[in-house]
């Protein structure tokens, strides 16, 4: 749930604001609220989650009420409302991927990382969760890693181990 009282101070860099301006230019002048979803993605790419204080600043930038940002940020599943690991692993857990072993991959990740779904490892590097269909059913099991959403297909326990080692050594 969204905790409105929580306030992590955030500063929007001039580079980030320049990206905001570019996104805003895609819509008719009086329809800049359309930029809300893309802006929240930009915020998340910068801070790895979307703190309430950042939502307030986005509201201010778009000249809309903070609640209009909160209701969107809580509706869509991609926006992290609390801090995640540096690498947030998202494994598809929907039907077709389960037919080819997604559930095993999820439990393997839990054992490998030593944390439950939604928790962050002690070194702050990893968190993971099951997500619904990622539209890659023919190449399952699949996972993606935010914020770039790099995509890994045809997972096996061994390929997941290697992926985690590679990320640790990055």
């Amino acid at each position: 749930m969204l905790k409105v009282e929580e306030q992590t101070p955030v500063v929007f860099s001039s580079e980030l604001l320049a990206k905001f301006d570019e996104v805003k230019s895609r819509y008719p002048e009086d329809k800049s609220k359309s930029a809300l979803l893309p802006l929240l993605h930009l915020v998340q790419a910068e801070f790895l989650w979307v703190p309430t204080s950042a939502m307030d600043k986005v509201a201010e930038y778009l000249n809309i009420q903070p609640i209009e940002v909160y209701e969107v940020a809580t509706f869509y599943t991609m926006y992290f409302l609390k801090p995640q690991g540096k690498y947030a692993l998202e494994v598809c857990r929907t039907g077709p991927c389960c037919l080819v072993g997604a559930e095993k991959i999820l439990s393997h990740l839990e054992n490998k990382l030593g944390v439950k779904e939604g928790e962050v490892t002690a070194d702050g590097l990893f968190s993971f969760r099951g997500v619904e269909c990622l539209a890659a059913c023919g190449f399952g099991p699949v996972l993606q890693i935010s914020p770039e959403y790099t995509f890994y297909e045809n997972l096996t326990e061994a390929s997941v181990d290697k992926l985690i080692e590679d990320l640790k050594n990055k």
Partner: protein
Amino acid sequence: MSRKLLLEHINVPGINTLEVYRQKGGYRAVEKALKTLTPEEIVEEVKKSGLRGRGGAGFPTGMKWSFLAKPEGVARYLVCNADESEPGTFKDRYLMTYIPHALIEGMIVSSFALGAKVSYIYVRGEMMPQIRILEKAIAEAKAAGWLGKNILGTGYDLELYVQPGGGAYICGEETALLESLEGKRGNPRIKPPFPAIAGLYGCPTVVNNVESIAAVVPIINDGGDEYAKIGIGRSTGTKLISASGNLVKPGVYEIELGLPVEEFIYSDEYCGGIANGKRLKATVAGGSSVPILPANLTLKYANGEPRLMSYESLSEGGFATGTMMGSGGFIAFDEDQCIVRNTWNFARFYHHESCGQCSPCREGTGWMEKVLHKIEHGHGKMEDVDLLWDIQRKIEGNTICPLGDAAAWPVASAIRHFRDEFEWHIKEPVKSQSQNYGIANYATPIEKTPVTEEK
């Protein structure tokens, strides 16, 4: 080999670049459309082609276009629905990844036909790599003069933007998509008014699936009549099928509509049969929302005639013995798969994705998930099966958008065709935790009914 219209050049190295795409005849449709055809003539060609919406509903695209209101001085929009999220469907991701200019070319021709000056491609947010691919391709096209001001000196201006979603299945419903594009929660709108009258920002809008828009390119190049010659009956042209599950060769295939289902599953040109030498138990032929069918009804109608991959043939027999083409997400289940577990999985999906606007869907999907979880985990009672039937009946048709129906149909069809398996789970709460019900008689071939003369 069947004809390929969309994926003909998919294996050409560099086909994702403008240069190679042009070498292979790309953007010819833009030249032809903008220089030699009027918008009305393009709409007419698309009507003649018989193209039906490839996102799932199968509504004729040309007819949808002809409904677009054209009041003086009001902007019109074309929005491409690339919010591909239907479990079992991954054709649009494939198309956008490997041949992004096919979509952009289709967007230019379609935008011109509809009189849109600004168009958006709404891509689901998880597809950030595809968003980057499309943005790069749009920049290439713009630099080469295919987008922007005064395209090919014809005086036609078009700006094309990619809009990321936020991770919500419901935004594949066109009015929810428009809400989302306006920066709001993806709650579907009550229709009417339809988007053709009041869509994006209250302006007349057409929303089309990626594959539908890409199909406009060969329709303009070869003519609507040529396109309509491919396929069978009212299922014209080619269709991308996303094949997943326990198949030897899962993947995206372009088929001519009318291909026998059996050939699609077993021939080496397509899926190559069931993986690991197992037998086929069941299929979901058009994405998770369409009814699941046992193997025997997948391959043949109840009267023993072979079933084909077409809108009409897949729905032959209605929901009693048929299914639907849907989005073309073809999921195959081998003999070791548990229908109860899969039905629970899909029910959880719909519960997770319900937007919460309509009570029957918001409450019903959660209720179905709980009951199915109970049965799957060995705590079910016999009356739970009837309870599930009752709940799905009360969701179907009682919601603003089709997500309610989409949640109800997988449960209804699983009970209709696999009731024995549900009952076995309930009668054998311990055994069902370690064993599967197996294939039973679900693959028993259907004998052809002898034709008898009416007296």
